[in-house]
């Protein structure tokens, strides 16, 4: 045995430090105790103790999305790993770079139905970008470094490392990270220049262009958002963003049409439907975006920039794919645009904008004001108005109506400030994610816009917020319903509200106080501003319980199975038969 050999657990900690990990979110258990022992012995790597492993993964997601770094999770074997699964799949669908270390029973017990044993690599295979079972201490340093490379390069995603306890305790040599190319995994970063030239030609010829950008822009880094903004403003094209892309283009700019898709704006969806050239930047034609597929933007030529070749032609056939990292491709696109002195068709663009302004004039996000009861849209708008002067505002959400209202009415001027569960739609995401954001940005204003149903799914994390004195603000739009479920039941199932009313809700004010946090309540529109201000003035964690109109629906909406130009709106919605029979089978 060489003198400088160290234990597997020490190798893990050293590798995390060398990979620049500052904080790991986790929960201890029998199969990871050697690693926790190493954490105890050092001061560089900070550990945040969550209250359930699912919370750890969402916290790491929030951390990763608000910093652009890899989020790191540490959980024990068996139930520790299975509790992490939802978060892993959430990170998979939203392309969030994570490394999740799971303890495992000793190698000689694997397959023995040992205590707290789970087939972690088997279970997590379809919900991770890649996973590893470390069977020998010799492989450990390489796998640790490789995991960070796989998680953060190409289309980012979660990576699981399953660490049997005997490997954690074995002695081995540590090797520092090197710049060695992976033998089989080599994502393409630079776009094909011929394709980019072709894209410039198509865009210059466009009479009714639109830019449709998504989470790929955010993942490509703040530089990508700048390049996207440059290109959009250079050309004068209209731009719309997906739920995942909010913040990639400044919302205040006049060329911005708002979010598109199922609860997107009328002007964004109509522009998508009627355009003749679509430039899709780092988005994936998800079913919430396209609506009815065979009626999706029927007359356009589509250009698709994506780092993941499997996103190309997955659901919508595109005319020109450009495989590569968004920032690299946009940089080349701008270069070629300038060097070929490409010009837009000014006249056509003017009349296109005239049409768009007509759509915009419909003011599709308008809602009926009420001076007795708080409208949820108003609550989000006031929250935005009272915080917009601050640059360091981070918003997370849970999943449901409140999430869509937040996306519609809160406005984002820069990337990495909006964290929501887009692909998987995980209720319970927002509170732990906000925790992760606050850990990364201790002085920032971090608000979880929540619903009273979602918040209960990971409410235990209030304990984490209390323990670490994280000043997270939880802003609950409380309508006593699982609002989005109730809305679909109203539109699709004859207003039979099967199991969507929430009874036995806690008193959120007292709940906050029981954790040593501040609890506030607003029940009348007149109280709203005061309560929000009180929340902002508090330097501790706060829960605000906002009693909102119980039966308010989220509009506009593309009903399932409908096309972009078949949106329904607040005032003219019919409660029965708004969605055709064949749309009912869709989710």
């Amino acid at each position, binding site marked *: 045995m060489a003198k400088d050999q160290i234990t597997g657990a020490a190798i893990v900690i050293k590798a995390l430090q060398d990979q620049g990990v500052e904080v790991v979110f986790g929960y201890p258990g029998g199969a990871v105790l050697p690693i926790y022992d190493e954490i105890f012995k050092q001061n560089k790597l900070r550990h945040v103790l969550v209250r359930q492993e699912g919370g750890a993964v969402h916290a790491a997601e929030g951390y990763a999305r608000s910093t652009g770094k890899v989020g790191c999770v540490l959980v024990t074997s068996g139930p520790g790993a299975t509790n992490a699964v939802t978060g892993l799949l959430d990170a998979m669908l939203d392309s969030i770079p994570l490394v999740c270390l799971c303890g495992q029973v000793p190698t000689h017990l694997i397959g023995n139905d040992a205590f707290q044993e789970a087939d972690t690599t088997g279970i997590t295979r*379809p919900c991770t970008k*890649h996973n590893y079972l470390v069977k020998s201490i010799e492989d450990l340093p390489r796998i640790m470094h490789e995991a960070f490379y796989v998680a953060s390069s190409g289309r980012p995603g979660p990576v699981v490392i399953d660490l049997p306890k005997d490997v954690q305790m074995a002695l081995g040599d540590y090797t520092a990270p090197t710049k060695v190319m992976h033998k*089989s995994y080599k994502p393409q970063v630079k776009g094909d220049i011929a394709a980019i030239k072709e894209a410039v030609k198509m865009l210059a010829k466009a009479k009714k262009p639109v830019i449709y950008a998504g989470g790929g822009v955010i993942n490509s880094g703040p530089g990508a958002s700048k390049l996207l903004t440059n290109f959009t403003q250079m050309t004068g094209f209209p731009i719309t963003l997906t739920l995942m892309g909010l913040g990639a283009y400044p919302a205040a700019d006049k060329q911005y049409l708002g979010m598109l898709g199922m609860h997107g704006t009328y002007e964004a969806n109509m522009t998508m439907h009627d355009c003749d050239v679509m430039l899709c930047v780092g988005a994936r034609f998800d079913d919430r975006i396209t609506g009815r597929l065979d009626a999706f933007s029927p007359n356009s030529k589509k250009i698709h920039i994506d780092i993941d*070749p499997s996103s*190309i032609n997955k659901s919508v056939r595109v005319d020109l794919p450009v495989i590569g990292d968004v920032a690299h491709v946009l940089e080349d696109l701008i270069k070629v645009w300038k060097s070929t002195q490409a010009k837009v068709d000014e006249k056509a663009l003017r009349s296109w904008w005239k049409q768009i302004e007509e759509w915009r004039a419909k003011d599709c996000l308008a809602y009926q004001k009420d001076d007795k009861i708080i409208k949820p849209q108003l609550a989000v708008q006031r929250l935005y108005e009272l915080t917009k002067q601050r640059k360091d505002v981070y918003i997370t959400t849970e999943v449901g109506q409140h999430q869509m209202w937040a996306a519609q009415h809160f406005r984002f001027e820069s990337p990495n400030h909006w964290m929501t569960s887009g692909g998987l739609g995980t209720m319970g995401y927002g509170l732990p994610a906000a925790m992760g954001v606050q850990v990364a940005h201790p002085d920032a204003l971090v608000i979880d816009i929540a619903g009273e149903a979602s918040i209960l799914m990971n409410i235990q994390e209030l304990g984490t917020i209390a323990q670490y004195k994280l000043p997270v603000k939880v802003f609950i739009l409380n309508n006593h319903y699982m609002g989005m479920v109730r809305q679909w039941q109203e539109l699709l199932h004859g207003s039979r509200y099967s199991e969507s009313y929430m009874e036995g809700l806690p008193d959120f004010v007292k709940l906050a106080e029981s954790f040593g946090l501040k609890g506030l309540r607003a029940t009348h529109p007149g109280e709203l501003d005061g309560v929000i201000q009180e929340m902002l003035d508090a330097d501790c964690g706060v829960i605000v319980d906002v009693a909102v109109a119980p039966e308010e629906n989220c509009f506009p909406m593309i009903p399932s199975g409908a096309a972009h130009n078949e949106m329904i709106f607040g005032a003219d919605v019919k409660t029965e038969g708004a969605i055709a029979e*064949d749309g009912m*089978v*869709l989710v």
Partner: protein
Amino acid sequence: MNNSIYAANPYHEEERRHTISVIVDNEPGVLARVIGLFSGRGYNIESLTVAETRHRQGLSRITIVTSGTAMIIEQIKAQLNRLVPVHSVSDLTIEGPSVERELALVKVDGVGEPRVESLRIADIFRARVVDATNESFVFEIVGDTGKLDAFIELMKPLGLVDISRTGVVAISRGPEGMSGQE
């Protein structure tokens, strides 16, 4: 009319059979990744074979016969390529001429005229007898899938008892090897 966005084939295209060859790291779980990808995304597997081909580099070749529309086949290839231990993916059906072979062991029992007839047909198909008793034969036959199907069809009335097939292995014609195994 079905306007479902989840319809299997919104473009109503013809499905075609493709033979796809995949070079992978020979490591635990790699086959589960490939199979899980097919089952999880609802792709067909008509046949699948796997064995180590380059021991020194630790590489295996997986040959998959699948069917789908052009768009689905493109997806299958892209999804396979996305797996971290996959070195390369080639679609032998469209990337130029290739050779496909399959091996089957076919057990036939019988006495008298059917037994003689089965031997005669085996001779026509160039199948070899690898086991014989007084009332049975095991034939070994090599060829493409169609030839094996035809042979098995002919054996049915002659006392077919059991079949074991390897599934398709395939390789491109000409001097070039597949990338990813340099």
